[in-house]
């Protein structure tokens, strides 16, 4: 039967229906910094668990079966769909991250080295963690990280809005960010008959991001002065994102064999 460790890994590196557990775990953490760490750490723990398992279980066993592949793709589509109507930043980040992280199982099923599995997970969890941090900053200033109420945040909090926008783009496989190359590899690995699912995921991500950014950027600004993020933390955020890009470009070489 299915190894307990595989099940545990499925909780941490989310696959439906155990992905609910992952989401609940992250939800329970209140403090934004701690939540960011949870988003970063839990998938890595899941990947580490998988690393410890013998090869054959992973490659020819449960993980490689078509049912599991279908389940993984279903998870990804489901969470992408749920993210469409969400306006709260942490919830959105969590759902889209789940959607992306579940695709990691496809790599596991094809016998990729453990290091690659971990890095793949990072490609989604780092932007998600960043978004958690930015959401915390929003809450501190506006009382909550719910977008679209009194929009026009781009005018009132330009630096923070920039960071949120870039992080959101990093999360949904925008080129040059590592998630893009990760998705590219998934496309490479999947048979043609199942490609439509990944395209569907990409389409949903794009739609969700469009709506998300729309709520973030446009609208008539509300009243009252709000303090924007100071320059130093903002630059720090930019450095992290830039680092992501560099990592992505370097890493892509390894995937595509350049």
């Amino acid at each position, binding site marked *: 039967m299915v190894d307990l460790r595989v099940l545990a890994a499925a909780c941490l590196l989310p696959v439906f229906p155990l992905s609910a557990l992952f989401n609940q775990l992250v939800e329970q953490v209140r403090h934004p910094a701690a939540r960011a760490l949870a988003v970063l750490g839990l998938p890595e723990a899941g990947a580490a668990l998988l690393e410890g398992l013998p090869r054959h279980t992973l490659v020819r066993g449960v993980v490689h079966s078509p049912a599991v592949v279908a389940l993984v793709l279903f998870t990804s589509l489901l969470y992408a769909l749920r993210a469409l109507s969400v306006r709260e930043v942490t919830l959105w980040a969590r759902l889209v991250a789940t959607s992306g992280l579940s695709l990691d199982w496809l790599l596991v099923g094809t016998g990729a080295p453990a290091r690659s599995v971990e890095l793949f997970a990072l490609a989604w969890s780092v932007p998600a963690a960043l978004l958690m941090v930015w959401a915390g900053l929003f809450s501190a200033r506006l009382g909550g990280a719910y977008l679209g*109420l009194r929009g026009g945040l781009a005018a009132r909090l330009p630096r923070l809005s920039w960071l949120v926008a870039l992080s959101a783009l990093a999360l949904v496989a925008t080129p040059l960010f590592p998630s893009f190359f990760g998705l590219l590899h998934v496309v490479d690995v999947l048979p043609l008959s199942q490609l439509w699912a990944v395209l569907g995921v990409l389409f949903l991500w794009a739609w969700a991001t469009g709506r998300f950014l729309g709520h973030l950027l446009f609208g008539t600004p509300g009243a009252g002065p709000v303090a924007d993020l100071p320059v130093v933390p903002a630059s720090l955020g930019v450095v992290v994102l830039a680092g992501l890009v560099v990592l992505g470009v370097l890493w892509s070489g390894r995937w595509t064999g350049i």
Partner: protein
Amino acid sequence: MDRDLSLGERLKIRAMVYVASEPIARFWPMRTFIHHNPLFGLEHRPFPEAVAEGTSLFHARGYLTRQQYQEYRRAGRVDDEALARRIGAFAAAHDPGVPGVDLERWLWCLAVDADLAQLCPPADWLDGAALAAALRGRRPEVAEEERHARLLAILERRLPPDAPFHERVDALFGTGIGPAVDELVIKACLDFFDEGQSVWGVPGRERGFFPAWRDVARRDLRLLIHGRASGRLLAEEADPEAVVASILADLGIPEEHWQATILRELTHLHGWAGFVRFRQQAPGYYWAARFPADLVDFLAVRLVVERILVLEAARRHRSPADAQALAELVAADPAGAYLRTELHGGTVLPGWAQRVEQALARRRPAAWQRLAARYIEAKAHHEAAEQAGALRRLAEQVGGGAPTVLQELGPHELDRLLGALRAWEREEGYAFLVAMESRAITDLVRRVRVPEPGTPTRPTRRPFAQAFFCIDVRSEPLRRHLEALGDYETFGIAGFFGVPMAFLEYGNGSEQPLCPAIMTPKNLVAEIPAGLRLEEEPLFGALSEVSHGLKQSVMAPFVAVEAVGLLFGLGLVGRTLWPVGYHRLRDRFHGGEPPTRLLVDKLSADQADSIVRAVQRAMIVQALARELRVARDQVTDDEVRELREIALGNAEGPSALATRLGLSEAAEARFVETLRSVYRVERREAARQLERLGRLGFSLEEQVQFVARALTSTGLTSNFSRFVLIVGHESLSRNNPYESALDCGAAGGAHGLPNARAFCAMANKPEVRLRLRELGIVVPEDTWFVPGSHTTTTDEVTLADLDQLPSRHLLYLERLQAGLAAAGRRCAAERVRTLGLGSRAERSPQAAAQAARRQANDWSQVRPEWGLSRNLYGIVGGRHLTEGVDLGGRAFLLSYDHRFDPDGRFLENLLSAPVVVGEWINLEHYFSTVDPHRFGSGSKVYHNVAGRFGVMTGNQSDLRTGLPLQTLYKDRRPYHEPMRLVALVEAPVRLVLAVVQRLPKVRSLVFGEWIRVVVLDPEDGYRVLVLEDGRLVDHLDPTSEPCTPTVLEEAR
């Protein structure tokens, strides 16, 4: 519909729509842009009341923000004393009776120092008790029983029964029906009202807006997918009135609210509604006659679409489908309804938003009841804390123990204080406005030159030239520079020079009214070329005609590039890179215009008859050429005459021509029929043409009247110089839908030159001069009236009809033109500085003139000139008051001499036409400045022309009314200072009041304070009297009370 309306009910609906639509200002097509007051429908009420109502109707601002007023105050534009007086008056009237709180000081600090847009924002749960708790650092408590009652009150406020139904559903369920309805209605309007911009038109437009729309809507997939209900609603052949009544009844709206609901429905798209309103009331508007539409149709379309979408939302989201269901929903679960309105209205606390959304999505009432209780507590706490913080900060600014006093106040006292502060915030904008105007009046009055008693107000020597300019503010700098150059005397008169006429330009098919929009001209003036050669046309002109015509054809994209593309390409490149040079080149190719004359005299019966005959002959010749391919030289005059008689029904039988050509009887009969139907050679048409020709021109008496009135009212009755220039004005810009807004408002948004030419033609006639002599106005033999045109974008003055100048004047012509050119260049230099065109342009007057010309010809320029921005003053009096005074191009200058006007007839004319036009222009600028996105039309960059009569923002939106951002704002700050027109009148007070009393419209404008009237009384030592709050106050000594009440009471 299952409701058959009786005739009475049908008429009642029409009347209701008519009355409801009155606050919506009419929207004139932008081809002749008319500056008008956006709140014209509310002008019967005093200004502050009308602004309050208008801003709530149109969801707009009526005054600038507090911060903007504070900026003006820092720049010294606000009269502190006037502001303090108003605050004092308010504090005395609204004393909250709170011990230790000096309301005047608090309000002064709030108005002048506080960096807040709003001290007391609207709050649901805030009251004295909550505030007291928050000030002491405790959480406010909302008792259970009280909560229910307050919930109902809040919901009543947020979901008023006379709001359109879809607004209420959207507020509760976030269904977005409002924008969807707007989009579908806008599409319907664009399709129906198109005036030749699109190539394919909606079929069946002649039957009216609603029938045509319904036919198309039945087949519109977009509507059909919104639900099966649409099929049923659109299937029946009902009148628009029946549809309106039926749907309002279906929606469950009680009849006493129909009027208010209709008004709120129409104001959603007030641009389009305003256009429909204009169209249905415009006499002789071509498109309205062909494709009739009125507001009842518009409302019917809107309501049908709304009903379809409401039913669909009811099915999909389980939202209520009529007012009863909605009321039941709200009554059954007020807490849930409150949460819904919070979430979808955007007022929810951000930290709770996700929880509220999830609770509502689960559709379990128990869950959101619990949540509501906790949420209300949190909201009450948030509101109280915010308000307490704001009050504390204000108290600190007030200083001197105010914070401690605030801390000690009890709940009831806090309630009263809050009430007073809220009431003040509603009035603060008006107080600042009055204070700014007070400063403006002081500025003007200090600079005006009061004449010494006994000194003559006009020059004693004979000036080199006299010039009449339009009252437009842009004439002021030119007049100033011209007078500074030498012996020039200038006068100001409305740009149509008192001659209300409809103008038929040579080559133009329809007539154009050239007079203020409030007048309807009765006479027609036609322009005919001096040498009539109808067949010649430069080749380039024909080509450009073709290329522009091609733009509208379907085949254009495929053909134009090959055939005319290169030519067009030249145009595009030339226009962009070398604006001035290209246009010069183009004008040269066009071969210039032939010299023309204006027909200002009435035709005699014989003349009229010959003209009709000549037109008919020309038509017959055309018909022969096109229908029967018979060339002009193959037909004799007699044959043409015979054909004419046959067509008019005066003769019978085969014509000589038919016999010669061998035409069969049937063919000839067909030809005659074509002559009658297509070429209009028939008896009734001839009679109509004769009648129209009867409108042509003015009788001698009328001509004398016009000239005499113009000369007497402005005071030019003696000491005429050699040249009397009559200068109209126009603006030049490319690719500018607002071009007409920059033209002459007094000439109905067109060029004033034809009026000038007509006036000069009349004034130069010997018969007219003879009659003027009898009236006491002696015009010397060597005086010649010359028409001219001032192009306000380049400040060039071009004289017209110079071919009619007597030869001895030619000697002086060069000096005159040089003077005008020099004055124009100096004027351009002054203006160019404000446009910020760079230091190169400011180096010299020549450079400035060159820069101005480029600006005018640049098709990418969003601001060719500032136009009427910064208009502020209207001065009715002699030029001696303002000669040499630099008014910065902000004043409408009307020349008026009260000594020639004992019974005030001329003052009546001035107050009821030019001053009203000035008021319209001023208020258009005012409202578009204080709210550029609701009253104004937003940024020009996003504008798209709609149907050739208006602009929309983006792809599809409401028709934008008002002026664009670029005309009024510079670098994000208002360039135009929004204040009401300050009308300074140099005349005895009793005369002014008597005249105002006689004119109901002017009376309501003056006493409603839509314009600020300042009277300089020459019979009282030029005392400055300002009308404020119904009293006449001496401006420089406000504490005295000069005007006896009886005079003022009679005048009210």
